[in-house]
Every structure is written in structure tokens, then in C-alpha cells.
């Protein structure tokens, strides 16, 4: 199966995106097709043997749209996009300032005489002495303000006439009605000077100005929500220092190939992913992994493009370039996550789709009712405009996408990459977390845990064992070698090395025949364990593997090896449990070892002796019990279980397959991030619900008041200006509330 993203052109409404989804899903071999109208993107998963991009594009073309395979944006393109956004924001600001400059004198002229201490006004503009001057001046000022806000009318009426009114339509109809009514009154002034009392120019102009102010603040805040991706883009340097024929040459990173040798100077950024060949340094990977402590790098270690090299020069062999780099993959994941809709977002879209026509009907109905009950036209108009303006569902439309953008951005800051809005939403419902033991709860690498000897010193026993194990490729042997090297030991050369398959090794060290191996070796060779038998039993009880070191036929001692529990595992499991989630430990180990580790980390339940191919079944059993299951694993053998789970989490950036099958990728090998991911999801969903709640409450409470429901009982009527102010405030409130997510501490 292959997943691709296409840019779709020609879509104007939800019906268009549904049509594109429907036709592509009909293609034999397509399993998933999701179209996002906001980003004009389609994400499609298909069987490469039965479908190809040409077929997909053809199908979309026949449906009346056009599709083009998305090309990943380069850093330069992203910068251009940023410049375009800034220019657009600049234009909005220019129009807003223009509108404010003309709206303020209009407000002064029209309402200055209404305040308790009337404002001075030239006689030629006096309302009752020169009513025509008074009205025409307002007409001119209003026309200029409406010109600055002409976009509402162009877009609003266009969509209205197409039968698909939107929020701009509400503003356009409301303020347009107020303006036209006032215009008619102005024309009537020469014949009836009392018509001057029924001017609503200032309502139209101020409402448009306030909505423009709201839109400006909203655009400015929305720009901030996508900052996370932009910051990541800016991490990658443009230039790399290529080492060729012993010479240094500065080249654009695009020209560097996998396999090239590059120089990373101290204080500069690592341009691409690679393996350190020469040099030692501390590297800050915090922007990519969330790990705040610099990581020591030495020859053989992997470095990530975009990380900061602190104090030493390193020669690095480039391993990944272009879209294969870790940074490019992270950016792609985040873009996809922010482009994919969460189910809760679809609900909001549907509601908003019915909302605008409903509001139009309510406004019309209210106007008709007040008109037939004998109220003057000015009163009816005030009701009509107020309902249309206050009901604008901008806040409703913004509630979910802004929170998801901020939530995924915050996750990335901690090295938690959430691949879709859906994953972010489901994560908060998780009732069971299954943690794979090896590599997830434990380090995944065996380590020397205990050394027991009565015959020689611990150090000498370890040096002897490690020297003999040096040629061995067995993980347990390598663990002993690493244990000695970590203690700074210089290993000695051995001769006549031989592997005893399934039992251990033998070699000659200092002219002595040495055997290192398990209990089976000891028993088969009839070595006398003596007091070491008891120690070995105790070690096995603790889930460790005792390796017996024998010189000639004398047992010198035990070097015990075990996969150790990560430092943060127990605390993380306790934290996960504190969220009301049950924690399961899954392992292929025998029950005794599994129980020991499970008890150490305080897991709620331990499921042992599970073959890799049966891991997915364990997930589905828990799902059948009605639980939303999160599976956390790091290896290829976890992939089916990750895919089966409601939320699959690949830990420690995982294998490529594990990453593909997962919904969430944790860049660090730290279980605390599982807790953080659940907490982040809970906070984001709570934020979305708050946003939706306030948007709904605002509209549902505002509409009846604006429609004059309280008026017959002595209650207030809503002034259109207040309605405009309140409507703009609700959008700004929702975006600001979403941005508040950035401040939560995931600890």
C-alpha cells in the first residue's frame, strides 16, 4: 500500500470535497481517501499493483477538478509562502487602518451629540439645521469605509447567489441593508426632514470596521499557530562543508549526496543526517527530540540534520539527504497531521454548514414578525442587522483547526510527533496502554548488572571475560565487552577463540583455557559450581542471565547480564495510571522474568510468553473488551500490533516500519512521553470543547437577544455595533484560547 498527497484545484464547497472523495474511493485498490477543503489536499492510500497516480488524477479530472501530486516544499518555497502571508497580513492591516481613519470621524459626527456632554460640531454639519449636509457627509465617510471592507461584499454576495452563503454573506447582507436603508432616508430628507432621524450609516461602517479588526487579529494569531513547522524548516542550514580530496568546499546542501564526507564545525548546525567518522563533540538535539541535555557524539554515532554542534569539529558521512532526512520526515508528519481533519472537526463543519442558512431564516422571520406587529422600519432593520451580525459562526469554524495546529506544534516541541488530528483526538479516550517490554520499558540492550567472584577481583574477572568475548558477536558477549569498556578497561588479546553454540565461548587468555557460558555449558562440561549455584539461582529469579567464567576447570565467578529497566519507566507508568489508564506489559520473555520486571515498574498486568506474531491478537482481545487501546513499541515485530491498536505509538523514533504503522512517533526513548502524549491529547480536546462551547453559547444566547425576544418583557435590544464587537471578540477569543495551549506544561 502506498500513501500519497495530491493538491486538488477547483473545489469551492464541502460538496466538492465529498465528490472527490467519493470518486477516488470507487477506484478498485484505493483503501483510504480523505480530502481537506481547507488545505485543498487529498491524502490517498492505494494498492500500487492496481492503482497508479495517473488513474487517480484522471478520475479527479473527470469529476470536474484537477489533481497534482504534491511536491514537498523546499525551505525556499516555505520562506516565500511566509513572505506572501506577511504581505497579505500587511494588506489587511492597511485596509483596517483606512477603515478606522474614516470610521472615527463618522462616529463623532453621527453620535457625538448623543453623549451627556455633547461634542462640538461645525454648524454646517448640525443634524437639524443642515440635515442634508449631516446625512451626505456620513454617506461619503461610510462609502469609503465600505470600500475598504469591500471583500465582505464581493465574497459574501457571490457565495449567497451561488446558494451557499457563508459568514461574509451575513456581514454583507446586514451592513448592506443598513446602508441602503440610510441611503433611501437621505434621498427623502429634502421632502421630509425627519428622515434624518433614521440614519444607520454608522452602524454599517462600524460593524464592517470591527469585523475587519476581528479578522486582522484572527489572521495574526493564526499565523502564530503554524510557527512550529516554520521553526523546524529554519533549523536546516543551507550550506554544508564538503570534504573532497582533503579539501574543504562550501556547497549548498542540495548538492550533497548520501555517502559524501562533510565537516561540521563547532558552533554550527549539522546540515544532514549522518554517521560520525572522526571527532568528538556535544550535540544539542532538543529542537528535534525535545531532549534538553546535549548528547555526546563520537565516531560511529548517528547525528541528525538540524541539530546544533557545540564544542568539537566532526567529520560526518552523510547517510540521508532530501526528503529522507529525519527533519524532512518530521516536517512532513506535522504538515499531514495539521492537514488531516479530526472527527470532531467534521462535526463542527457540518454544524457550520447548516448554521448560516438557518441564521438568514431567523433574521428574516424576526424582521417580518416585528414589521407585522406594527414597528417602524428602523426598528425592524436594527433587529435584522443585529441577528445577522452576531450570529456569524467564524468562531465555530476556527474552534477545532486552530487547537489541533497548536496541539501538534506543542507535541513536536517535546519530540512527540502526532500524525493526524484523529490520532490526537482518540488518544484522550485511551483506557489501556500496552507497553512492549524490550526497548520500551527496558533499554533493549543487555548490560552487565552484577559481578560475583571469590577467587579474583571483580575488575579482573570482568577484564578476563570481556577480553575473551571480544571476538564474539553474541549480544550477551557484546554486553560484557561494553561493560568493560565503560569502566575504561584496556582489553587484552586472546587466542584460539571458539564459539560453543547455544552454550558460550572458549578462548586462551594468559596461556589459560577460559570458558564463559551459561548453566548448560557448566553442566555439560561437569564443572563444579559450588557456592555459585545459589547466587546463580537468585540472579535468574531477578530476570538476569548469569554467565559463568571458568579457568581450566575452576569456576572463577559470575558476570550477570540483563536488559535493564529505563530510568524513567516506573515513574512514567505511575503517571500514566494517574490519568485513569490501565497499563499492560507485553513480552515474549518467560513468566518468571516478566513478572520480576512487571513488579519493578509497577505494571497493572503482565502478559508474558507472547510470540511477535501474536502481539496484534492481544491488542484486539482488549479492544473486544470495549477498551480504546494504545500500543507502544519500537521494533519491526511491533508493527502489526501498532496498526491494530486504536493509537499506535513508535518509541525512540522506532524502525521505519514501526513509524509507518504508528499514529504517534516519540523521538526519545522515554516512556514519560507516552504520558505527555495522552495529557496533550486531553488538553487539546478540552480546549476544542471549550472553544466549541463558547462559540455555541455565544451564538445561541446572542441570537434571541438580537432578535428582540427580551424586548416585549422590558429587556434590551442589541445595537448592531455591539453585535459586531461581540462577534469579532468571539473569534479572537477562540484563537487566543487555542494559543493558550502553548503554555501548558507537559510534566
Amino acid at each position: 500500500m502506498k500513501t500519497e498527497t495530491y493538491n486538488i484545484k477547483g473545489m469551492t464547497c464541502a460538496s466538492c470535497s465529498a465528490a472527490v472523495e467519493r470518486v477516488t474511493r470507487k477506484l478498485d485498490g484505493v483503501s483510504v481517501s480523505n480530502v481537506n477543503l481547507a488545505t485543498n489536499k487529498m491524502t490517498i492510500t492505494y494498492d500500487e499493483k492496481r492503482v497508479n497516480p495517473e488513474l487517480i488524477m484522471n478520475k479527479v479530472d473527470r469529476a470536474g477538478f484537477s489533481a497534482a501530486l504534491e511536491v514537498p516544499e523546499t525551505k525556499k518555497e516555505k520562506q516565500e509562502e511566509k513572505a506572501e502571508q506577511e504581505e497579505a497580513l500587511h494588506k489587511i492591516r492597511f485596509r483596517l487602518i483606512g477603515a478606522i481613519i474614516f470610521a472615527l470621524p463618522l462616529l463623532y459626527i453621527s453620535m457625538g451629540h448623543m453623549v451627556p456632554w455633547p461634542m462640538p460640531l461645525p454648524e454646517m454639519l448640525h443634524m437639524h439645521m443642515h440635515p442634508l449636509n449631516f446625512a451626505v457627509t456620513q454617506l461619503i465617510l461610510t462609502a469609503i469605509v465600505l470600500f475598504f471592507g469591500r471583500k465582505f461584499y464581493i465574497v459574501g454576495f457571490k457565495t449567497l447567489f451561488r446558494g451557499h452563503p457563508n459568514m461574509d454573506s451575513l456581514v454583507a447582507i446586514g451592513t448592506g441593508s443598513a446602508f441602503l436603508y440610510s441611503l433611501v432616508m437621505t434621498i427623502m430628507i429634502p421632502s421630509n426632514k425627519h428622515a434624518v432621524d433614521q440614519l444607520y450609516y454608522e452602524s454599517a461602517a462600524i460593524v464592517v470596521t470591527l469585523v475587519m479588526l476581528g479578522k486582522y487579529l484572527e489572521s495574526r494569531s493564526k499565523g502564530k499557530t503554524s510557527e512550529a513547522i516554520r521553526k523546524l524548516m529554519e533549523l536546516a542550514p543551507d550550506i554544508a562543508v564538503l570534504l573532497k580530496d582533503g579539501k574543504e568546499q562550501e556547497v549548498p546542501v542540495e548538492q550533497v549526496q548520501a555517502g559524501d564526507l562533510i565537516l561540521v564545525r563547532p558552533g554550527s548546525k549539522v546540515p544532514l543526517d549522518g554517521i560520525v567518522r572522526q571527532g568528538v563533540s556535544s550535540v544539542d538535539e532538543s529542537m528535534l527530540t525535545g531532549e534538553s541535555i546535549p548528547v555526546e557524539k563520537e565516531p560511529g554515532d548517528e547525528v541528525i540534520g538540524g541539530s546544533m554542534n557545540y564544542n568539537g569539529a566532526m567529520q560526518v558521512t552523510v547517510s540521508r539527504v532530501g526528503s529522507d532526512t529525519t527533519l524532512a520526515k518530521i516536517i512532513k508528519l506535522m504538515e499531514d497531521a495539521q492537514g488531516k481533519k479530526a472527527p470532531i472537526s467534521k462535526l463542527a463543519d457540518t454544524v457550520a454548514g447548516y448554521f448560516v442558512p438557518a441564521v438568514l431564516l431567523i433574521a428574516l422571520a424576526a424582521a417580518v414578525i416585528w414589521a407585522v406587529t406594527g414597528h417602524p422600519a428602523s426598528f425592524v432593520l436594527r433587529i435584522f442587522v443585529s441577528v445577522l451580525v452576531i450570529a456569524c459562526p467564524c468562531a465555530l469554524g476556527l474552534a477545532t483547526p486552530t487547537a489541533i495546529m497548536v496541539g501538534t506544534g506543542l507535541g513536536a516541541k517535546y519530540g512527540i510527533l502526532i500524525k493526524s488530528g484523529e490520532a490526537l483526538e482518540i488518544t484522550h479516550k485511551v483506557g489501556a496502554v500496552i507497553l512492549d517490554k524490550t526497548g520500551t520499558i527496558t533499554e533493549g540492550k543487555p548490560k552487565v548488572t552484577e559481578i560475583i567472584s571469590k577467587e579474583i577481583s571483580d575488575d579482573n574477572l570482568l577484564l578476563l571475560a570481556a577480553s575473551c568475548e571480544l571476538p564474539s558477536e553474541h549480544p550477551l558477549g557484546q554486553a560484557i565487552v561494553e561493560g568493560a569498556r565503560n569502566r575504561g578497561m584496556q582489553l587484552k588479546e586472546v587466542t584460539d577463540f571458539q564459539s560453543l553454540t547455544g552454550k558460550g565461548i572458549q578462548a586462551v587468555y594468559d596461556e589459560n583455557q577460559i570458558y564463559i557460558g551459561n548453566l548448560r555449558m557448566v553442566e555439560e562440561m561437569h564443572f563444579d559450581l559450588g557456592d555459585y549455584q545459589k547466587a546463580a539461582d537468585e540472579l535468574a529469579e531477578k530476570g538476569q542471565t548469569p554467565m559463568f567464567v571458568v579457568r581450566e576447570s575452576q569456576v572463577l565467578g559470575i558476570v550477570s547480564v540483563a536488559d535493564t529497566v529505563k530510568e524513567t519507566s516506573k515513574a512514567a507508568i505511575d503517571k500514566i495510571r494517574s490519568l485513569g489508564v490501565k497499563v499492560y506489559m507485553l513480552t515474549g520473555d518467560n513468566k518468571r522474568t516478566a513478572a520480576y520486571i512487571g513488579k519493578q515498574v509497577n505494571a497493572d498486568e503482565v502478559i508474558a510468553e507472547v510470540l511477535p506474531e501474536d502481539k496484534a491478537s492481544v491488542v484486539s482481545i482488549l479492544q473486544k473488551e470495549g477498551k480504546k487501546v494504545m500500543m507502544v513499541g519500537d521494533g519491526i515485530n511491533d508493527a502489526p500490533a501498532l496498526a491494530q491498536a486504536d493509537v499506535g505509538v513508535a518509541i525512540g523514533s522506532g524502525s521505519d516500519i514501526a513509524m509507518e504503522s504508528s499514529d504517534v512517533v516519540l523521538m526519545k526513548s522515554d516512556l514519560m512521553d507516552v504520558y505527555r502524549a495522552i495529557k496533550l491529547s486531553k488538553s487539546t480536546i478540552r480546549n476544542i470543547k471549550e472553544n466549541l462551547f463558547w462559540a455555541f453559547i455565544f451564538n445561541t444566547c446572542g441570537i434571541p437577544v438580537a432578535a428582540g425576544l427580551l424586548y416585549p418583557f422590558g429587556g434590551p435590544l442589541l445595537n448592531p455595533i455591539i453585535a459586531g464587537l461581540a462577534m469579532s471578540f468571539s473569534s479572537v477569543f477562540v484563537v487566543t484560547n487555542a494559543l493558550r495551549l502553548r503554555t501548558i506544561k507537559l510534566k
Partner: protein
Amino acid sequence: MKTVLKAEDMHCEKCVERITKAMKAADLDFDVSLANKTVTIDGCEHCVAQAKEIMDDLGFEVKEI
């Protein structure tokens, strides 16, 4: 013979434009109504079948009424 096809998913002018373009290309005698969400085909059974196929390609689910 006139056959009316109901397309509930026809929501906007863009939908009408797409239908019109495709029907014209197929040389069919037709009439689209956004208000009623219908496409009326004037022609034989073959024309109706062809129109249904076109609507399917455009992503609309149609019912004959």
C-alpha cells in the same frame, strides 16, 4: 421522453457548472436545477444510462424519480 435524476449532493453553482460541462461534452439534451437538485434528461434509455454514468464519474449519487 424526459427522465428526472435527483442528486442530493448538488449544493452549489460549481456543481452545476461541472454537470453542465460534462453533459454538454457527451452531447446530451439536459436541464440542471440547483433549486430542485435535479438533472432532467430528454432522450432515450441509453441517454439516461449515459447521464447516470457521467453523474457517477462526477461523484454524485443519483436516483431516478
